[in-house]
Structure formats: structure tokens, C-alpha cells
């Protein structure tokens, strides 16, 4: 797969590095946290210092420790919800797109219904009926989030499967007499990979955002540390009015960074799927190096591919 250009774009590299840091923190965060996140024995409202890198809260707790401990729950819920939702959308999208007919009608209707119902209110309603023990359980919340977040991916995968269904190579394996699930799994499946990856990133992004939102609203267990509950406590102690930026900023910036990293990786996948976006992703210096005009011209979107000609000679 020499055409796999994804890791080379600087956007993707930055995205992978940021995501990598947060994945590492997910694993080791609770171990390297300097203090107990619940300990309220420090002087309240300290600005950042060497003892407390991100300062302390009005309740006298260490902000950095809360951030590090909260990383794990936030990320794990995001990844579980993202994975489960993507698995559902692969199953629904492939089946609907490949089988067509009644199966497609039924599954598409189901996906359309889930797309049209606003996700967060549905989630809030389901969550409020859960027994108190389940509300506190991040796994249960993650699964409920997955239930509300699979439809978008299923729709995209269905459309792509339908466009692949009648291609010659699929037709060929049908004629050979391959089993239906084998055609779906090993003929169509690999061609859906970029879209599956994009859908996974999108869903993780959605799940991290929605879980933090629920936590911010105080609808999950407020004594389980995650980035949303940090914002919940900051909000309920009026941190904004007291200008305590060191308390507000870390969880918000952390969520935004995770989101940015996923979006940056997604850019790479987009450019992989749509080559016209690829040249647009180059910086002015790169354009010169590969021998493109400084300013892009109308009507000509250069498509970059491995060239046997030395670009320096061409320009």
C-alpha cells in the first residue's frame, strides 16, 4: 500500500501525537497524579505554582490531579461508546447496503429515526430513568451513548456499500459462488476502511463531547472524576465570576485538544478519500518543493501522486 499517504501530512502527525499523549495519560494518569483528587486539604484558590501546576479549586483540591484522574474515565467512555456505535453502524450499513430490498427499507428507516431524534435530549431522558447505580457506571452510560450515536455512520456506510455492490470485482466473487457474508467481509469490507475509520473518529468525538456534557449538567455521578464533572464543580462554585481561569481552562482545553486531534486525523482520511483536497492541504513551501504554482489556479486542482519524474527538473 504505497499510496497510503495518511501519516505524512503534518496535520495527521500533529493529530496522532496529541492523541497519543492523551492515550498514554489514560493509562498512567491516575498513577502519576501528584495528590488525591478528592483531598480538600490545600489552601483554596491558589494560582498555578510548582506545588500545584494548575492551582487549586475553591474547595481546596488540586486541579492537575483531578485532570489526570478524570482523563481515564472520559477517554474510556469515549472509546467504548465510539467502538460499539461503529460496530452497530458497520453491521446495519453493510446489511442495508448489500442486501437491499426489505432489509434496506427497514434498517434505513431505523437509522433515519435515530438521526432525526435529537441525541442529547433522548440521552437525558433514558439516563434519568436508569437506576441510580447505573447512572454512576461509566460503562452503562457509554453503551447508552453508543445507542444514540450509530445512525450517522450507518447511513454513510450504506451509501458506500451500495456504490460498491455492483462493481465488477464484487460481481465476480458472486459468480464464483462466494458466500454472502464472505463477500461483505472480505470484498466490500476492506474498501470501506477509510470511511469506517472516519466514522469511528467522529463517533468517539461525539461520545467524549456528550459524556462530558452529561457530566457537566450533573446528570452522571458527580463524585466520579471526569472532565465534565470538573466543569460541573467549577460552574456550581461560580469559578467564571471569580475569574478562576486555572480551574476552568484545563478540562475545557483537554476536551478541545482530544477533539482537535481526532479531527486532524480525520482530515488525513478525508484527503485520502478525496484526492482533490490533498493538494489544498499543502503549505506554500511544500507546493514549491513538488513543483506546483504558488497560487492554485481555478479549474485545475492538482492531484498529487508518487511521480517518477524529479519535480525539481519540472519546475
Amino acid at each position, binding site marked *: 500500500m504505497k499510496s497510503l499517504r495518511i501519516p505524512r501530512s503534518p*496535520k495527521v502527525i500533529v493529530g496522532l501525537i496529541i492523541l497519543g499523549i492523551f492515550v498514554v495519560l489514560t493509562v498512567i494518569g491516575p498513577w502519576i497524579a501528584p495528590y488525591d483528587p478528592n483531598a480538600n486539604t490545600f489552601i483554596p484558590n491558589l494560582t498555578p505554582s510548582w506545588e500545584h501546576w494548575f492551582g487549586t479549586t475553591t474547595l481546596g483540591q488540586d486541579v492537575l490531579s483531578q485532570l489526570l484522574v478524570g482523563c481515564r474515565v472520559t477517554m474510556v467512555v469515549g472509546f467504548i461508546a465510539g467502538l460499539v456505535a461503529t460496530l452497530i453502524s458497520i453491521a446495519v450499513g453493510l446489511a442495508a447496503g448489500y442486501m437491499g430490498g426489505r432489509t434496506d427499507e427497514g434498517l434505513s428507516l431505523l437509522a*433515519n*429515526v435515530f*438521526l*432525526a*431524534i*435529537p*441525541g*442529547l*435530549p*433522548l440521552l*437525558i*431522558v*433514558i*439516563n*434519568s*430513568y*436508569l*437506576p441510580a447505580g447505573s447512572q454512576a457506571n461509566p460503562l452503562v452510560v457509554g453503551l447508552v451513548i453508543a445507542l444514540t450515536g450509530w445512525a*450517522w455512520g450507518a447511513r454513510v456506510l450504506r451509501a458506500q456499500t*451500495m456504490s460498491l455492490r455492483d462493481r465488477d470485482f464484487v460481481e465476480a466473487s458472486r459468480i464464483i459462488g462466494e458466500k454472502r457474508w464472505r463477500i461483505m467481509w472480505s470484498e466490500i469490507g476492506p474498501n470501506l476502511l477509510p470511511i469506517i475509520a472516519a466514522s469511528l473518529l467522529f463517533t468517539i468525538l461525539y461520545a467524549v*463531547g456528550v459524556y*462530558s*456534557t452529561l457530566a*457537566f*449538567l*450533573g*446528570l452522571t455521578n458527580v463524585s466520579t472524576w471526569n472532565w465534565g464533572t470538573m*466543569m460541573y464543580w*467549577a*460552574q456550581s462554585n461560580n*469559578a*467564571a*465570576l471569580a*475569574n478562576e*481561569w486555572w480551574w*476552568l*481552562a484545563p478540562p*475545557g*482545553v483537554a*476536551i*478541545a485538544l*482530544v*477533539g*482537535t486531534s*481526532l*479531527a486532524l486525523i480525520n*482530515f488525513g482520511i478525508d484527503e485520502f478519500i478525496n484526492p*482533490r*483536497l490533498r*493538494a*489544498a492541504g499543502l*503549505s*506554500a513551501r511544500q*507546493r514549491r518543493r513538488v513543483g506546483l504554482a504558488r*497560487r*492554485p489556479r*481555478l*479549474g485545475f*486542482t492538482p492531484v498529487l501522486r508518487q511521480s517518477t519524474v524529479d519535480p525539481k527538473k519540472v519546475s
Partner: protein
Amino acid sequence: MASNSIDEKGNHGVTTLLRRLAIYLFTAWTTITVNFVLPRLMPGDPIQQLIGKLQGRVTPEMIAAIKAQFGQGLNQSMWTQYVHYLTQLLHGDLGVSITLSSPVSDVLSSQIWWTVGLIGVGAVVSFFIGTALGVFFGWTRGSRADVVIPAATFLQSVPYYFLGTILIMIFAATLHWFPLMGAYDPTLSPEWSWTYIASVLRYGELPLASIVLSSLAGWMLGMRNMMVTTMSEDFVLMAVAKGLSRRRVMWHAARNAVLPSVANLALTIGLLVSGSLLVEQIFNYPGVGNLLVNAVGNEDYPLLQGIFLLITFTVLGANFLADALYYVLDPRTRTAAVH
């Protein structure tokens, strides 16, 4: 491509629109049914627990009303309960709010206009500004202006409640440019006077700005990508070859590139409404979002159910409007009927 106007089942534009309407009606029915089924089938019997907690705190009539609404202790079959529930809904009866002690429909009709006003204006403003910016940055692709992409991506990833809180901290609490929270000057009473309306507008500025800022980037990035793709189409090259001015070419490309954004409008309305529920929480603004969070906190299930129905129906209606707009904007969906 004339075949574009006919979908894979051979339906023409109007038929497609009617199919969408059918899907929305089906979704509305599903929502009602989910609302009926959830409290009855959830493990732990939440309604039973609620009634236990309410004993002695509210009037016996209130408990009887809740029991009737959720079919507790009536020994009716599920089907009878369901028919009863649907009949009530058809008469606009959403039950009685436990905490506010007044009919849910009255509570909602007094609060919904704050939400519709704020979120509606915010959505329209951010769609137009974001799309215009997207046209511009799509046009200047590959130049230094491309630095806005990572910046916009970051802005898009910032959680709404964080953005709102930071805006309050900087512009209201520290710089005192805007009022802190609320929807109007608390010393005024709601009436049709200029001072009151001016106060509502003044208090709406910062919440509105936060909504626009948070959803702007999405529209911009989507439109920019479509502009980049559209500008390499032959018809744009043709427009350049005819010697049209830059502005006319840009307008020509933009009109075609905006169609997916309009198609996406339907998909994003739900997201926008969900996210904007938070605006009321953060700015202490009246409206449906504030009611929803309070209803969850107080386990006010009748109010919670009513709000969920109201939000879903509004989103479905908005979705259908967006579909109809697409039908009007894309001439291919209309000319198809002639062929």
C-alpha cells in the same frame, strides 16, 4: 446529470419530499411510543420509586394524576393504557408538572419562545456567516489564509459549555461589557415596551454570540471543502474562460457548493438544538433547556416527557423545512417532474 434528480428507487423530487414527510411522521410516532414505554419497562421501576418519595409531599390528587399517566396500580392492559395515552396527547394534555404544579403544556408554552428566539436567530446567523467565510477560504485555498483550518478545527472541538463559561468570565465578569446572566433586567417586568425589548436584546447579545461562535466553524469547514471540490468542476473553468469577473465566478461556484450545506442543515439541527440546551444553563437564561435540566434534577417525569416530545417535534419540523428548502434551491429536483 438529469438522473441525479431521481433517487435510487426512481422517485421524483416531490415524491422524495413526501417520503421524507412520512419518515418524520413515523419518527414522531416512535418518539411518542418510546415516551410511553420507557418509564414502564425500565429496570427498578422509576415511577414506583418516585411515588414513594412523593408520599406526603404533594396532594393525593397529584399522586393519582401521576399514577393515571404512567398506568400505576390501575390493572389496565398495556394496550388500554397506550390508547389512553395517545388520546390524551391528541388533546394536548401532557400531564401536570410535579414541581411546578401546573399543566405541562402551560409551562412549555410560556417558556418555549425564549428558546426558539435565541437558538433560531443563532442558527440562522451562524449558517450565513459560516457559509460566507467558507466561500472566501475555499476561494483562497493553498494561500496563507489556510491557517484558519486548524484554528477553526480547534474552535469546533471546544465544548460549548466551556466556550460559554469563558465568554462570561472575560466579557461579563472581568470587562463588564455585557450583563452577567438572565434574559432581561430583573428590575423590569415583561411588557411590550421599548425599554423591556431593548433590555431583552442587550441581555441576548452574549448568549447569541456564544451560539454563533460555537457552530460557525462547522459550517465554514464544510463549505470550504465543497468550494475546493466545486472549483475544479468544468463549469467553473467555463465561467473563467468566458471572462466573467472573479466575483461572478465565485458566486457561480458558491451557489453550487452550498447545496450539501443545505442538505446537512437537516442533520445538524438536532445537534444544534442539543448543544444549545446548555446555553440556558450557563447564562441562566429562561427556556426549555433550563426546564429540562431542572426536571431531571427534580425527577419531574411528566415535565421531562413533555419537553422531550416538544424538542423532538420541533426538530422534526425544522428538518422538514430544511428538506423543502433543498427542494426549492436545487432546480434538478423540480425539472425532473417534467421529464
